[in-house]
């Protein structure tokens, strides 16, 4: 399998890449830091990847996107994994990183995708309902989910599967400052769920799976009550 991974140095992406490398896949990694890409590429080669190529780019600059796809060549799978938690004041930056840039990349990927291809992006359970503590992040992920839903319909007849991955809390650099609870999953655990969802073409995959039930409850709470809750 040939995969292009955007945001390849994120904790979740790296864990997914290790599983793909162990199966002997061909990998094309995109991120901002050349030294981090080099560290990950060496690791993936040792783990058995057939080939690993890397490219540095600032994905918030849409001018880079076409060049990256041209350089990467044909693919079976695209995983869009970059994102930031951000601050409530960083409206532009959060929206551009978590929504605009992924949507633009997925749009190009959709044009180039062959039948049977997989287009996956990392959403979040935070996109299921806005909460007091991370409204902006949740809004960007909700927007991404709507975009992916539309793309899924559009691509269905062409045999291209679109996968929305919705992790809960994952123990990565993004959540380093949060106090850890039993709800936290390891990147390796989440990665197994993502690889399975991509293989099967699962439309919306909660990882770990128990988040499906938690979020069903959270979504069912009437707004008149939800507004009083603070979590």
């Amino acid at each position, binding site marked *: 399998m040939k995969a292009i991974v955007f945001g390849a140095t994120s904790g979740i992406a790296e864990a997914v890449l290790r599983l793909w490398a162990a199966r002997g896949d061909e990998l094309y990694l995109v991120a901002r830091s050349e*030294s*981090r890409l080099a*560290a*990950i590429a*060496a*690791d993936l080669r*040792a*783990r058995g990847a057939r080939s690993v190529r890397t490219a540095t780019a600032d994905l918030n600059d849409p001018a880079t996107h076409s060049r990256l796809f041209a350089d990467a060549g044909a693919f079976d799978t695209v995983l869009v994994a970059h994102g930031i938690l951000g601050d409530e004041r960083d409206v532009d930056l959060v929206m551009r990183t978590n929504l605009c840039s992924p949507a633009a990349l997925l749009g190009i990927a959709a044009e180039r995708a062959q039948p049977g291809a997989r287009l996956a992006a990392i959403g979040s359970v935070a996109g299921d309902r806005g909460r007091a503590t991370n409204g902006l992040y949740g809004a960007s992920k909700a927007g991404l989910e709507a975009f992916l839903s539309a793309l899924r319909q559009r691509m269905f007849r062409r045999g291209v599967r679109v996968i929305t991955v919705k992790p809960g809390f994952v123990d990565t*650099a993004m959540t*380093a400052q949060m106090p850890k609870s039993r709800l936290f999953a390891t990147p390796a655990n989440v990665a197994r769920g993502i690889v399975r969802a991509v293989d099967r073409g699962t439309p919306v995959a909660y990882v770990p799976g128990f988040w499906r039930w938690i979020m069903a409850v959270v979504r069912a709470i009437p707004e008149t009550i939800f507004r009083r809750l603070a979590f």
Partner: protein
Amino acid sequence: MESWGRYPRATQTVQTMRWRSDVPRFDGAKVLPRGQGRSYGDSCLNDGGVLISTAGLDRFIFLDEAGGTLRCEAGVTFEAILDLIVPRGFFLPVVPGTRFVSVGGAIANDIHGKNHHRAGTFGRHVRALELLRSDGSRRVLGPHDPLFAATVGGLGLTGIVTWAEIQLIRVPGPCLRTEAIPFADLDAFLALTRESDGSWDYTVAWIDCLSPKPGRGVFLRGVHAEGAARAPSRRLRVPLDFPAFVLNRHTVRAFNRLYRLATRPGTRLSHYDPFFFPLDSVQGWNRIYGKPGFFQFQCVVPEIGTIGSLLQKVARAGTGSFLSVLKTFGDLPSPGLLSFPRKGFTLALDFPNRGPATLALLDDLEREVRATGGALYPAKDARMSRETFVHGSPRLDQFLPFLDPAFSSSFWRRVTA
């Protein structure tokens, strides 16, 4: 935060390193690198200071299949390495009793395994490592560098190991031909050791601490062999702290009887996993000792007679030890200035923490070890005296100049205060 022995507990802040290029903050507080926290006592704790977790430095750098070497970051675990290299026909040169240790931890404690009589310690197979010091310098060290000798077995006190290169061994597959032989006393153990150490890669003995005649046990030996076997499932888990009453003379005796059955005499082909890492199949086994935790006691003494006397003391105290392990160390020199392994006999025991009675027994054992010219293993120690440490570390004076001034640990303050 706690160590694997869950005694003592310590409060400290944690910094994490995710990339080799990361530079931790050295801002006055004493720091200590920490890998998987599998040391039993306080050598992986830093009460009131900073722990620098290297668990995120878990990448391979280069596997040279022609030369049989592996370069990887310090936080990579032995489990990850074995998963990678065994299917490619390699094995680690030395493995301890658990595969959940990191490369950095294995170097810092200059660990040993069941093949000490043939391979020596892990440090003998490290070809190079990079050390990050608190002055910001990064140095690549080889076995002939004095700072290398201080870092191997140096308990993480000379700097942070960011990566290391290890010489692997070639194996025909994941299997070992193993043999279990019951023996009645320490003389029989000695005879088995003499007979086996020349031709078997791995030898170790399990001792039944509660037998009326101290020294009864089962001798286990193994060699890498051709064949296929599947790794047993790794599912069992201790989900909660056992209350203290679960562990008593009778349950330990029952366990020992079970263990005797499980290691029934005879030769068989075994996957490497249960042979090397029998306790790893029970995740969180340290919780069976409950909240108070437990003490490990591992010594090396020059004479087998001392082992008999130590075992008698333990039998008399009646606070049996689940897994009591006896092994003959060979005479291959350990490369580290503070390395624990040296020629002689090493005995490892564990005791549930029952307060003053346990402490008195440990004191008694420690006195005997010191009097007979032996040493205790820092990685498994929570309470040896300064005197015992100094006696057991003949090259301590050579080590001290290499100590990084920003580094310390709870253990280090205890034994050097």
